[in-house]
Structure formats: C-alpha cells, structure tokens
C-alpha cells in the first residue's frame, strides 16, 4: 500500500514535467502562464520593494504579457544557478538580463537587446582611494559570482601590476552591504546597476567616472533548441513591437534616467 502511494505520487510528479509532446509555447499557452526565472537582488532590473517585485524587467514583461496574452510569473533564484537551470530545462525564459557575450551566445538564444552597460566600480562616497579603474590594484573589490562583471574584472585585473583582492558574492545586495560596512574598497558591477544604486543612496555610494572592459548589450534569453523556438520567436516579436512604438524607451527613462539607443538585434559572433 505504501509502495503504491509513494510511487503514485512520484509518477504524477514526474509526468507533470514530462509532457514533452508539446513545445515550450504550447505548454505556456495551456497553462496560461509564462514562467520566467531571474534573480531579485538586481536593481534596477529586478528587486523587491515592500515585498513587491518591481523594476525594469517587471515593467517590460508587463508590456510583453499584454502583447502575447499570457500571464508572467517570476521565480527568484541565486544568479549562479539561473543559467544552468535554463540549460537543464527548469524554465524556458530568463529575465536577468545577461550580457550578450560570445560564450553565452554559443549556448543560448538572446532576444532583443534591452540595455547597454559597461563594467564599472562603485565606491563609498567618502572614499578617495579609487578614482579610475587602474586604482583597484591591490584593493579589496567585491563582485557577484558568475556575473559578467566578475569575468571582466578578472581579465582587467590580469593587466594590472598588482591584482585586486576579489571576493565573490551570491548577489549584489550582499556586496553593496559589505562596501557600506567597509569590508570592501569597491564593488565591480554593470554601470546601469551601479549608477542606480548610487542615485538611490548618494550619501553612501558613488560611481567612478569611467568603466573598463567591453561595453555590452544585455537581454533576456532562452535555449537554442527547437522546443523553445516558437516561444522565443513570439517574445522577440512582442519586444520589437514594444520597442518600436516607444514603450521600451519610456520604461528605460523611468529606470535608467534616460532612453538608450539600441539595435534590434545583438551581436551574433559569426
């Protein structure tokens, strides 16, 4: 009897995940919901205010939701496991956004670019030890694990006479808290995020004038397989509509302070 009960439960659970006869779009349609994974300690894209999930991604997905007629539900995961989870097929779309890099493009399909950013350094307002990127030599720098900024920081550090002492964090809330607590001299982050954090708390944080490393576009992404194709085509179409009728620019003004001039398609790395 116990055997039967346990195996029935396990089977029903397994079968919910195994309806592979439908593709990602059909699954989303029959559920009426698009499942999106992201990490919610990443202002201004995804963060929590009074328990409410808000940000640039939320506003953009609201518009996408209107276009495609599906409700959008977000799952909050540590960033270091978001992309591996996408690859494992836990969900079909990641918000993020992720910087469009060659390495990631080999594995994932990026949608319409939603922002442009460069890696930069955020410091405490009262700290004058770092004024330009090369000043981080020998300093204590925090960065998020598995983020683009972490990669850019590592390759930039290799060009310096003395490498910075790098600490990796699960998310930027923790890195910024350590910057404020004085455990770090600087935090390496994408400029959009760093500028937003400094604008919210000018008494605590400031961003140095110039960044380092490549300027990259970033976007939402999905898998490259056939299963995801129809869904991602539909999302891409919806995003182009939102971009061309000016809604995306409005949302950018709201969160970045100004609209960004972006191409319809990111780099393809042929």
């Amino acid at each position, binding site marked *: *009897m*116990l*055997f039967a*009960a*346990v195996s029935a*439960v396990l089977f029903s*659970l*397994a079968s*919910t*995940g*195994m309806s592979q006869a439908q593709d990602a779009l059909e699954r989303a349609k029959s559920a009426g919901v698009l499942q999106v*994974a992201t990490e*919610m*300690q990443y202002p201004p894209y995804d*963060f*929590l*205010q*009074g*328990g409410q999930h808000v940000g640039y991604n939320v506003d953009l997905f609201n518009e996408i939701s209107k276009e495609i007629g599906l409700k959008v539900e977000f*799952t*909050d*995961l*540590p960033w270091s*496991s978001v992309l*591996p*989870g996408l690859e*494992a*097929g*836990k969900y079909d779309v990641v918000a993020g956004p992720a910087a469009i890099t060659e390495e990631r493009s080999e594995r994932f399909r990026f949608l319409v670019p939603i922002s442009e950013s460069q890696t930069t350094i955020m410091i405490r307002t009262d700290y004058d030890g770092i004024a330009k990127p090369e000043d981080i030599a020998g300093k204590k720098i925090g960065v998020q694990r598995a983020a683009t900024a972490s990669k850019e920081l590592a390759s930039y550090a290799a060009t310096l006479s003395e490498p910075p002492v790098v600490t990796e964090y699960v998310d930027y*809330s*923790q890195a910024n*808290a350590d910057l*404020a607590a004085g455990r770090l001299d600087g935090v390496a982050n994408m400029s959009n995020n760093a500028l937003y954090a400094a604008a919210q*708390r000018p008494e605590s944080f400031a961003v140095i004038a110039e960044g380092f490393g490549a300027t990259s576009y970033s976007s939402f992404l999905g898998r490259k397989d056939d299963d995801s194709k129809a869904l991602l085509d539909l999302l891409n179409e919806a995003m182009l509509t939102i971009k061309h009728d000016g809604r995306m620019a409005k949302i950018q003004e709201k969160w970045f302070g100004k609209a960004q001039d972006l191409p319809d398609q990111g780099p393809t790395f042929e």
Partner: protein
Amino acid sequence: MIDLFLTEALPVFVDGIQATLFYALGCLVVGFPIAVLICAMRMSTIGPLKALATVYISFLRGVPLMVQLLISFYCLPVLGVNVAPWAAALFTLAICTSAYMAEILRGGFLGIPYGQIEAAQISGLTRRQILLWIQVPQAVRLTLPALVNEAVAMVKASSLISVVGVLDLTRAAQNVASSTYQPLTFYTVAGALYLVITMSVATGGRWLERRMAAGRR
C-alpha cells in the same frame, strides 16, 4: 521605524512564516510514510532491499541538504523529473528527513518486545496489520523524543530552500534586510520568529509524549 516595519516587512514576513510552516511540517507528513517504507526495507532479510535502503540512508545523511536541493532542482530534469520550485523544495526536504526518521524508527522497532508480535500473529493478524497497528504506533511512541528533535531540525533545515526559488522566512528576512538596509533589526526579528516556531514544536512534542504515556496506562 514602526511605519517601516508595517509597510515593508510585515507582509513579507507573514508570507515567509506561512511558507516555512508549510514546508517544515509538510515534509514530515510526506516523509513519514517514506521513512516507514525505508525502515522496513532496511530491516528486511532480502539482501538487495536492505542494501538499497542502507545506501539511501547513508547518502541522504551524508550529503548536505543544500547540495541535495541543488541536485534535485538542477540535475533531475535531465532524468525527466522536472517539477516546480515548491514541489522540489517539499519533496527534497521530505526525502531527506525520511532517511533520518527511518534510522530513528529502526531503533524503535528493535525495542518492541517480540512477544507482542508473536501474540498478534497468533491472534491471526496479517503481516501488514501487525506493521500498521502494532509495530508503527509502538515504534513512534518509543522514539517520540527523537522524532520531535527531527521536526525541530527540519524547521531549521527549511531555511535553505530559497536556493531552489522558494520564498521562506529566511529569504523574506534577506529581502527586507537588503531593501531597508537594516540587517540587524530584521535578522533579529527572523531569529526570534524561528525561535518561537522551534520552541512551539518542541513544546507540542512534549505534550504529545505526555498524552501517549497517559494512553498507555
């Protein structure tokens, strides 16, 4: 301060407490029958069943819960087991606790006087009836303090489930701490809430022990 607490923290904490109670208690309910099954396998005389149960218990007690959560969420989809975050959290906790409960119950089963089972056999009860009506209740009564400890341990263990995308009391505290920049206040609040929950479970367990002891008289 009060204002901040009411608008920023209260709704998040209420959600978090509900989730923590759901997962910590739910995993015990789901895990208990699995534990009985594993315990029966572990004590059986059939070699392969016993070996399977031994490896099951050893693995689940030997690997940190955080690693188990990550494996069940990110690796099992490859085998076709692709479940929502809440199910991954609940069933991973349940399977984890089942290994501990199976070992606890084994101690209880071994403590049942053999005469009772013989008496039941003579009275014509089937093996299954003996297991469900004689052995399981006896084993639970004998091991109740250890089972209550396990329940308290699962309340604390459930603080890790946010790695698979579930909001619980710990994640709620993290979210509020980082959006209000007041980690000291809100982690203290979260700690106090956990203390209330674990102490209530322990107190409830002691009450149950007294009741069961009274039932024996």
